[in-house]
């Protein structure tokens, strides 16, 4: 028993130490974003004494963060809606259709879990140019939908296969079409799995920097990640502003995570868990 207590004690020490290592940078990020530069350098760890919102104001005025947020929210919501809709339809068909062809399609989709879409970037750039979508948010949306297909089919097909099939059979005997079974029975039952897929993709899309970097120059289509990288470059020596920009980008996700941490953890690790 004593041994076990020692084990618990050392567990507390190690975990507390690491937690401090995690919290410390985030804490200094946020408190220092409210301090003038001089105070950051003189007293980096205390609460702000000369509270200022100058960094946020500057970021908002020179950086049009209102626009970047609107753009990112728009891209995320449109992409997510379509990923869930298109992905769940395909997953339903692949779970129900027992044939070699559907198994082959399933494998084709989930192979994308192991192969990063970025490797095809050069051709995506050519495609986006050919479709005259460069510098628009519509260049990002189809990429994000394609990127979401492997995880959506992986998680949702496994989930539907677990559902008792009598539920669908009964409805079909009553003369319901496949579309009716899908939209009225399967879709509502899938909600927990849809939430997992949504969170996984939401984080990926919200935080994506690569595709905006490659495809977008115009101010009107900038996302938060792109705005952060441009402004951080400008503010490198003005720490109040630099930290305000980083806080602006980090806080929405952090707050959401504190509210929904269980769902976030489940969602983000979904790709690794066998269905």
């Amino acid at each position, binding site marked *: 028993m004593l041994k076990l207590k020692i084990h618990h004690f050392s567990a507390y020490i190690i975990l507390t130490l*690491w937690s401090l290592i995690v919290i410390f940078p985030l804490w200094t990020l946020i408190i220092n974003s409210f301090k003038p530069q001089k105070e950051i350098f003189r007293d980096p760890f205390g609460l702000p004494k000369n509270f200022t919102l100058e960094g946020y104001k500057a970021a908002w005025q020179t950086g049009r963060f209102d626009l970047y947020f609107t753009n990112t929210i728009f891209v995320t919501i449109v992409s997510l809606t379509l990923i869930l809709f298109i992905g769940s339809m395909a997953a339903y068909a692949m779970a129900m259709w027992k044939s070699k062809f559907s198994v082959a399609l399933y494998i084709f989709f989930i192979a994308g879990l192991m192969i*990063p879409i970025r490797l095809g970037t050069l051709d995506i750039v050519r495609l986006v140019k050919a479709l005259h979508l460069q510098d628009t948010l519509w260049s990002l949306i189809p990429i994000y939908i394609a990127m979401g297909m492997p995880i959506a089919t992986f998680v949702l097909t496994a989930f539907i296969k677990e559902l008792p099939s009598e539920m669908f059979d009964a409805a079909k005997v009553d003369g319901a079409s496949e579309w009716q079974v899908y939209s009225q029975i399967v879709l509502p039952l899938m909600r927990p799995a849809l939430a997992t897929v949504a969170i996984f993709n939401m984080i990926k899309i919200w935080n994506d*920097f690569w595709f905006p970097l490659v495809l977008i120059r115009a101010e009107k289509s900038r996302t938060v990640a792109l705005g952060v990288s441009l402004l951080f470059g400008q503010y490198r020596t003005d720490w109040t502003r630099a930290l305000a920009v980083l806080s602006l980008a980090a806080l929405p996700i952090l707050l959401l995570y504190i509210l929904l941490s269980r769902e976030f953890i489940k969602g983000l690790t979904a790709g690794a868990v066998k269905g």
Partner: protein
Amino acid sequence: MSLQMNHQKRISENKRKLTWFLFILPALLIYLTFMAGPLFDSLRLSLYTGEGYNPSRFVGFQNYQNLFTNPLWREKFFGAIKHTTIFFLIHMSVQNSFGLLFANLLSSEFKGKNIYRTIIFAPATLSVLVVGFLWTLILNPQWGAINQLLIAIGLKQFALPWLGRENLALPVISLTSVWQWVGMPTVLFLAGLIGISDELIEAARIDGASEWKLFWHIKFPLLKPVIGIVAILTFVDNFNAFDVIYAMAGVKGEPAYSTDLLATLFYRTGIAGEHPVGIPNMGMGAAIATMTFLILMSGVLLWLYFSRQQAKE
């Protein structure tokens, strides 16, 4: 009569197949057009040369030959492979050992374990770019918190320019990334450990097994499948890393290309264009992407082979 029924049955069977196919079609089209298609077309693109967005001159394997033998490319290419491997190995060893340790500590019941888990995982939800920029400030040689702390406790000689030295920058950036991602293996290992029956562990404890023995002789062997999954995820994610280098060392992998990874080399070559020319060389970029693809594929296939072998045992 029965012939007609058979006929009708076949029609309805075909109609069913068509319905299923139509359900899959939208997903298939977008996946083909924006993911699978571009991936395969990049292989083709790597056999061409030319400036701008339509490299049209077919050159066979000349881009690859350049990559492997032309000293201008060779040095950068093999440098990038080496740095990417180091970056991956640091994650594999440090991140995953820490993950295993934290998961083992979190697997017993005690007060506050969910809070610890939430904190450990938190950085994984943030953008890599934001984390990279944040640590650049923390590691700033003059004003950064790390060096301020080191000076305050009298270790001035250890207050180094962390991102400014060629032998230091890559390990330091890798560890920053470990800081962000350690929550992933922690949570995955934790799920694996929770699956191990309590009775088994209690029985071993009653027999007098130490926590150390308990871990190595009972928990670790049972965790093998999870270890395999964590390993392959670490491999795929890190052979593809870009954002953290962009944020902390720039696209040229400063200082002196010592942190240049395959993805930053790919970006400079195929998308941004190398200084001083500034014109992207898409054929060459595609060759680098294809080589990265081959490295990833061989890793994944090797992993599939070994996990099959293990499953048979």
